[in-house]
């Protein structure tokens, strides 16, 4: 009994000693691991010095950078890419201290995607600090290569629109007028609409930047707003779109609606207020709808439209199908109620088909000879060729 008690005590002492050794060893190992980690940081500054937030900032400038927090991708990337990223990180630092020096460095880089990435980073950074100065610099340096100019202006406009969208839009409108480059203006509208559609919509309805910018602004606003809130976008088009842009705004709604809900798109096209634009609206509706369900689209055309509108729809359906399925396109053409259109469209498609694939076209004609007006066959040269054949 006494011996057993002694053994138990001895075991307890040995176990305690073992635990103490293990505890000390664990701490020692921890110190080593920390040391390794610090050493690694200095070797790869980008991985550790760029916070996820900064990385998001780089991506917001439209760049294809590493995903924030994606350490697997960061640690696995190539040495060359790491070098490039280090250079860009240094450039970002320089841009925050002296944008003009950073731009000078970018302009000295070899032309290519890295140079454009660098330009975007510099202007994204400058736009955070002093967007007006960045905008002035761009307008004073319009002679630099077009791609760099476009890249710089889009990066500036995107960033500026997050802090002062009205100013960004005014600047990008002015830039558009001076350069005929619409990218910055378009991106400002999109960015502003995503942030605050109510304010963007109010501004677009109240201010004019000229014919083409107003078109762009309306189209992009409606397009983005319709993705967020289709009902509100439709309401905006009805009540706020300037009269001369109503047809374009309706098209933007239909492009969106026809992909999502063709049945509702048809209702929108057929609304009495919208009938003035039915030709272009049908065009947009059928272009989208036939991508997903050409049979349903054709059925709707056959059963729901007046003869005049049906003809417009058939013409569009014939255009959509003429290259890939000319036989079907001719069926649409032959369904046209207007004699003149029927002749013209059928002749146009058949003539084209014969140019592309005479054998198939002539085979089809021979099988449908009695259904085609003889004058069409004469016009496309079919009859004369057949009659002169031995």
């Amino acid at each position, binding site marked *: 009994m006494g011996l057993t008690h002694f053994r138990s005590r001895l075991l307890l002492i040995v176990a305690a000693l073992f635990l103490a050794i293990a505890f000390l060893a664990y701490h020692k190992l921890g110190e080593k691991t920390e040391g390794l980690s610090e050493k690694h940081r200095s070797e790869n500054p980008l991985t550790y010095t760029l916070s996820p937030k900064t990385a998001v900032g780089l991506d917001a400038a*439209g760049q*294809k950078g590493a995903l924030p927090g994606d350490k697997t991708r960061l640690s*696995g*990337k*190539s*040495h*060359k*890419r790491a070098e*490039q990223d280090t250079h860009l990180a240094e450039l970002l630092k320089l841009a925050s201290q002296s944008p003009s020096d950073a731009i000078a460095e970018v302009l000295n880089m070899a032309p*290519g*995607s*890295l140079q*454009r990435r660098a330009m*975007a980073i510099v202007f994204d950074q400058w736009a955070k600090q002093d967007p007006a100065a960045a905008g002035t610099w761009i307008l004073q340096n319009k002679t630099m290569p*077009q*791609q760099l100019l*476009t*890249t710089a202006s*889009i*990066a500036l406009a995107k960033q500026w629109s997050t802090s002062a969208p009205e100013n960004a839009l005014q600047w990008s409108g002015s830039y558009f007028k001076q350069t005929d480059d*619409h*990218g*910055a203006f*378009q*991106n400002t509208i*999109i960015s502003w609409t995503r942030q605050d559609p109510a304010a963007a919509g109010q501004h677009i309805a109240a201010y004019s930047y000229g*014919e*083409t910018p107003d*078109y*762009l602004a309306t*189209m992009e606003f409606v397009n983005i707003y319709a993705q967020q809130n289709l009902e509100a976008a439709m309401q905006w088009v009805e009540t706020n779109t300037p009269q*001369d842009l*109503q*047809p*374009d705004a309706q*098209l933007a709604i239909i*492009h969106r609606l026809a992909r999502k809900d063709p049945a509702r798109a048809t209702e929108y096209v057929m609304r009495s207020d919208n009938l*003035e*634009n039915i*030709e*272009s609206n049908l*065009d*947009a509706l059928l*272009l*989208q709808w*036939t*991508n997903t369900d050409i049979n349903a689209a054709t059925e709707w055309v056959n059963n729901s439209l007046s003869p005049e509108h049906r*003809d417009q729809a058939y*013409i569009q359906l014939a*255009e*959509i199908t*003429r*290259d*890939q399925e000319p036989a079907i396109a001719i069926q649409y053409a032959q369904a046209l109620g*207007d004699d003149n*259109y029927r002749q*013209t*469209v059928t002749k*146009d498609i058949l003539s*084209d088909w014969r140019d592309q694939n005479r054998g198939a076209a002539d085979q089809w004609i021979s099988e449908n000879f009695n259904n085609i007006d003889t004058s069409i066959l004469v016009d496309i040269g079919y009859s004369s060729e057949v009659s002169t054949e031995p």
Partner: protein
Amino acid sequence: MVMALAITPKTQADPLTGFYKLSVTTEFEDKIGDDIIYQDLDGEYGSGRVFENSNGKLRFSGFLTSYDDDEVTGDVIKERIALVGIVNPTTGKVRLIKIGGELVSDWAAEENFTLNIRIIKRVDVVVGLNGNGSASWSETDEGGVTTDFSDTLRVVGYKTRELP
């Protein structure tokens, strides 16, 4: 009066409005350094319509048909890529705003993409539609090899008929 009649053109000016057929040819070239590692030529057919909307503005609406192979089934997938733009009535320049729902300006910034299309008129007759463009970008793989990609685009088209 006689003079005025003498200089009156015999035919009415051909309007820009109408149906157009167009084809886009793309030359792909992928290079590593100076070595061309891939070269191919691809083409897409399409059609478009230049029309005057209810407010008298010239607009372009069209599509390109693109073919792709389904990676799983191997089936050919056909998709119509919508083209949306506006037309300058004086110069005939077609400003494409979107291609397949994507902003042309985004491509410009990311892939150096440009595409200029113009309807050509000679002596007041529409003789065709011409365009050219390009895109270029680089990608570096995990092994540190950088590939430069460049696409050269050519657009050719003609007016097929007037609008109804």
